[in-house]
């Protein structure tokens, strides 16, 4: 999916009307199939940016364009249909307790299933193979029939990522996918994500705290104080730029 932000600003729904927006006007355009890492200190507005892109947050100013159209001019049902083509994976994997891994992963297919088919899938999983293949990419295929609330934090996070692979979305928005993974699992997970996104031609935007991982992406966005400080190919992201981005507030 192709996306463009024209001076888009956003604030948290709970924030007071006059407060400073969590995301100041941003100008950005991303081509279909591009892969983008967003870095920056905590509170820089990275998650708000993802939420705005996922149509989870209405812009306070400016305009969002997905495949050339403004989603916020659509009626509610049209917007919901469009949301089926986006996938937002929050940092804390939103897995319902008591559910089995297979169901949690297959839940990503709901937007393209009829209600009847999704109910049938609750009785007997309709496409366990897809769930198993997605889990296998994160080395988790053996947990297919386990309950999500019996998994470790890192396993839950990988289940959350396997979900992305099962969805039919063409824009993947992933928030801190590595926060509870050890370094070797983290490398594996990011490889699995980028490879799968390439295979499907999906646009991938992920926020990251691991700068060394981020610089393996073709394009890196540096954010601080709700603003984009740099938007460069990874090769041009110098140590000085990163030091300035993460410098203590004076």
């Amino acid at each position: 999916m192709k996306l463009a932000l024209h001076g888009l600003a956003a604030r948290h729904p709970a924030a007071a009307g006059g407060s400073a927006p969590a995301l100041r006007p941003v100008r950005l355009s991303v081509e279909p199939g591009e892969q983008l890492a967003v870095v920056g200190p905590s509170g820089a507005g990275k998650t708000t940016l993802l939420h705005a892109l996922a149509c989870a947050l209405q812009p306070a100013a400016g305009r969002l364009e997905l495949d050339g159209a403004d989603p916020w001019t659509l009626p509610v049902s049209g917007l919901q249909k469009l949301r089926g083509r986006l996938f937002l994976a929050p940092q804390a994997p939103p897995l319902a307790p008591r559910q089995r891994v297979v169901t949690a992963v297959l839940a990503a297919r709901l937007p393209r299933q009829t209600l009847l088919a999704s109910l049938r899938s609750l009785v007997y999983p309709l496409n366990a193979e897809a769930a198993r293949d997605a889990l296998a990419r994160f080395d988790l295929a053996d947990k297919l029939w386990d309950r999500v609330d019996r998994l470790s934090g890192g396993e839950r996070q990988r289940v959350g990522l396997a979900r992305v692979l099962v969805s039919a979305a063409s824009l993947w928005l992933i928030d801190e996918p590595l926060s509870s993974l050890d370094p070797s699992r983290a490398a594996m997970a990011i490889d699995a994500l980028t490879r799968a996104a390439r295979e499907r031609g999906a646009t991938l935007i992920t926020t990251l705290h691991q700068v060394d991982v981020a610089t393996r992406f073709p394009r890196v966005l540096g954010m601080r104080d709700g603003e984009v400080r740099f938007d460069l190919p990874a090769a041009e992201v110098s140590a000085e730029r990163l030091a300035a981005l993460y410098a203590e507030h004076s």
Partner: protein
Amino acid sequence: MSAAAPPALRDPAWTGRVFWSLAALALLAPALVATEFKPWLLVEPGALKATGRFVGDFLPPKFEPGFLWLVAQECWRTVAIATAGMALALVLAIPMALIANSVLSVSALPGRMHALPFAVRQGVRALLIVLRSVPELVWALVFVRVVGLGPTAGVLAIALTYSGMLGKVYCEILESDDRAATHALLRNGAGRLQAFFYGMLPQSASELTSYTVYRWECAIRSSAVLGFVGAGGLGQQMDNSMKMFNGSEVATMLLVFMLLVGLADGASAWLRRRIG
């Protein structure tokens, strides 16, 4: 860090807590006056004697085979009234709980709910209030006139009042549980009912089951009260026995009630364990 002074260690919520605790007590006082609440009257010699006579009548409970068979039949009818009433109530309550709860609102995802869905939700809430604010006894008196004496009136009365109660509490259980899983599904384009079955239901299943079984237990008690106005079952039998001042029969039926409530309690615990 900023140069401002460090925060004081005095808990800023303290004054508010003390105020509201005292306010609650102050509000309770007039209620005690209005209800002429004088618990010491219970232990006055005259009262104790009257109580003793009444309870003494209950002993020993009546265990004649013929009577036990009658009680068993009426007990079955009572359970049937409660269960049928609950089933009908569920048919009404579940859709209303799904419509009324705000977590499944797609228009509210980015912030404020739209006006029309808001109005529909408030309308359903109002309907739930109407349904449960009329006591089942009154519904039963209405239906006894419509369908005549017998269990049907009891079933309909329980169905109406309980649909109001179940709908409201289901809605509140669904709204108070963690909404992250449900909202994530809606945000990724799932339909409302899909989000309910894949996000909300596993989240709230245990709570919903426990409340449903508890309400079934209440429905059994309710059907006893309804029996007094001619809706059949153990209640009607109990009314007959009381009119005949036959305490030992009443005692047997009370024991049956205890058994039923204990059974419901066990069923609820078992179901909750199964759901986990």
